[in-house]
């Protein structure tokens, strides 16, 4: 694995109205890694991701995408950083008035100058990668939630970004589809070398996909574990980390599957 960090966070601190959400978060992700952000409900996983893609600005700390500090760079540099990333949002965030095909074509038309017919084929290729090639002409409201998620993934990958951010990619999907999505993520990572930052609390995905993970904890708002999933499951000094990763409930505070606090 290459060791040049493609994303680096240093001392990121976030608070809303005096309520501390994230405290002094620092880590770096080398290019090509599948990096997981895990933690219980309300531990700030989604907030952390929103800061990493520049949707929000932290009170303190820096986020570097390659060499660009997106917390305090110019608009031009920020646009450049955005070109390197693709994001799959938790709710897929497909544009409701456009068909699935148009949603995927949207960034391709904007950022390449390929002829229309080639783009149409590209869209079908991207959609066939996620098994939706037959739904090019459907509206997002006409397909199921799992399909929307896959279509969202196809759109996030439309421009072959160097970094893919996935917010709970397999949450709410049936086990087979979830496994397929995991497989797909692995394939993209291997064939294109895409760095993946995945927010998840699906244990299967954590062990199948993760090269490395960080776990956030909601009382301290800090990283309580960092390392490889299988090693942490048995070898973490922190009892909560071991319990989380082996899905046991015998703990002071209930953790596990649940909805994210907005």
């Amino acid at each position, binding site marked *: 694995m290459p060791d040049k960090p493609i994303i680096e966070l240093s001392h990121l601190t976030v608070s809303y109205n005096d309520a501390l959400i994230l405290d002094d978060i620092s880590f770096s992700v080398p290019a090509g890694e599948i990096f997981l952000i895990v933690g219980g409900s309300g531990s700030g996983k989604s907030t952390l991701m929103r800061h990493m893609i520049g949707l929000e600005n932290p009170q303190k700390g820096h986020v570097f995408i390659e060499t660009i500090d997106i917390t305090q760079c110019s608009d031009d540099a920020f646009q450049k950083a955005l070109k390197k990333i693709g994001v799959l949002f938790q709710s897929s965030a497909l544009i409701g008035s456009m068909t699935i095909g148009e949603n995927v074509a949207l960034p391709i038309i904007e950022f390449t100058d390929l002829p229309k*017919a080639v783009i149409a084929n590209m869209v079908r*290729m991207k959609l066939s990668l996620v098994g939706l090639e037959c739904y090019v002409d459907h509206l997002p409201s006409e397909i199921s939630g799992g399909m929307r998620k896959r279509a969202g993934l196809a759109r996030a990958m439309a421009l072959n970004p160097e970094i893919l951010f996935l917010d709970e990619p397999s949450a709410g999907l049936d086990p087979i589809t979830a496994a397929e999505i995991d497989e797909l993520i692995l394939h993209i990572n291997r064939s294109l070398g895409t760095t993946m930052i995945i927010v998840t609390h699906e244990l299967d995905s954590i062990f199948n996909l993760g090269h490395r993970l960080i776990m956030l904890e909601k009382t301290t708002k800090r990283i309580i574990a960092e390392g490889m999933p299988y090693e942490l499951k048995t070898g973490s000094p922190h009892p909560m980390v071991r319990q989380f990763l082996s899905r046991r409930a015998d703990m002071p505070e209930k953790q596990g599957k649940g909805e994210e606090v907005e």
Partner: protein
Amino acid sequence: MQSHNTQLMPESMEKTPSAWNYEIRENNASGHTVRLSGRIAIETASDCLKQLTSQLKKTALPIYFDLTDITVLDDYGALVLFELKHALKIPDAEFQIINPPEAYKKTLSLVNFDFDERCSVTSGRMKNNIIVEFGAAAIEALAGIRFMIAFIGAIALAVVDVFKRPRSLRGHDTVTYMKTTGVDALPVVALISFLLGLIIAFMSSLQLKQFGANIYVASLVAMAMVSELGPIMTAIVVAGRTGSAYAAEIATMKISEEIDALFSMGFNPTLFLVIPRLVASFITIPLLTVFANFFGIAGGLLIGVVLLDLTASAYITQTIDALTIFELMWGLMKSCVFAILISGVGCLKGFQAKGGASAVGHAATAAVVNSIFLIILFDSMFAVIRSYIG
């Protein structure tokens, strides 16, 4: 071996990692070999496709694509090869890819798709002829009417429910909607009717001055405001402000399944969502109309005093003489009907929403357009009725 070599971007090759290159060589046996090198990927795909299409147009077949020196090949690159084959109409047997690096074999296999075979199961949108379209529109219109009748029925039932058990009316919600529908709308309604009174007084004074009938400006403004313009202007402003808000709010709840959630918790969605809005507008819109009448007359008074040399007391006396209780009540009765129309249409359009974000916008637009149309329609009907009862 004869070789003709085309060098592209020789300098940028070293500088940027995005550069690519190609070399076309005539083979000893037959055909040509295209030796690709560098990145055949998203940022070079467009250029690559253009260059190769024009270069290979007249090349003798078969063509061998040598991928030995490729550093990066993504799905865009694979698609370029596929498109090239199609654009130049090269048959399968005469299009060969040689030495693809192991890592990119899977990427290349991505383009070996056959859409028609796989996509026969689900067809997307069908194209229909005009008769089918017409029929579909008629069916949809009928369904809309049915929905509307059911909606009116549901409201009637809910109203009965409220009379039977007054506590089932959500009082807190009603007060909130009274504030947003009434109190918050007062400044704009007052301003509009004041200016309206001003305009009517000014325009009519131009005519009435010629006959020395300045004082009748007061009667004219009073009659026009109280029986027609007060109720109508108020209704139109509220339809734009509140009717659309009702529709958008309920439509958003509908598409995010909140209404289904209310229903499954045992609430009656009509009682929960429609009745408070209906009651709130039924109370506040006539009150707003009273204010509109007052401010309209005040606007007329300003013109009368400033431009027509009337005294304020003469103007007010003339206004009071011109107005009758019947006139006032008639105007207020109309505004009660408009109130029901505005809130009813707003809620109905909200409940009819289906789909995504655009459904919300559509519901709001439809609510405003339909309620303004109905306001004018009912007002004309009232005018006809009025002519019969004298």
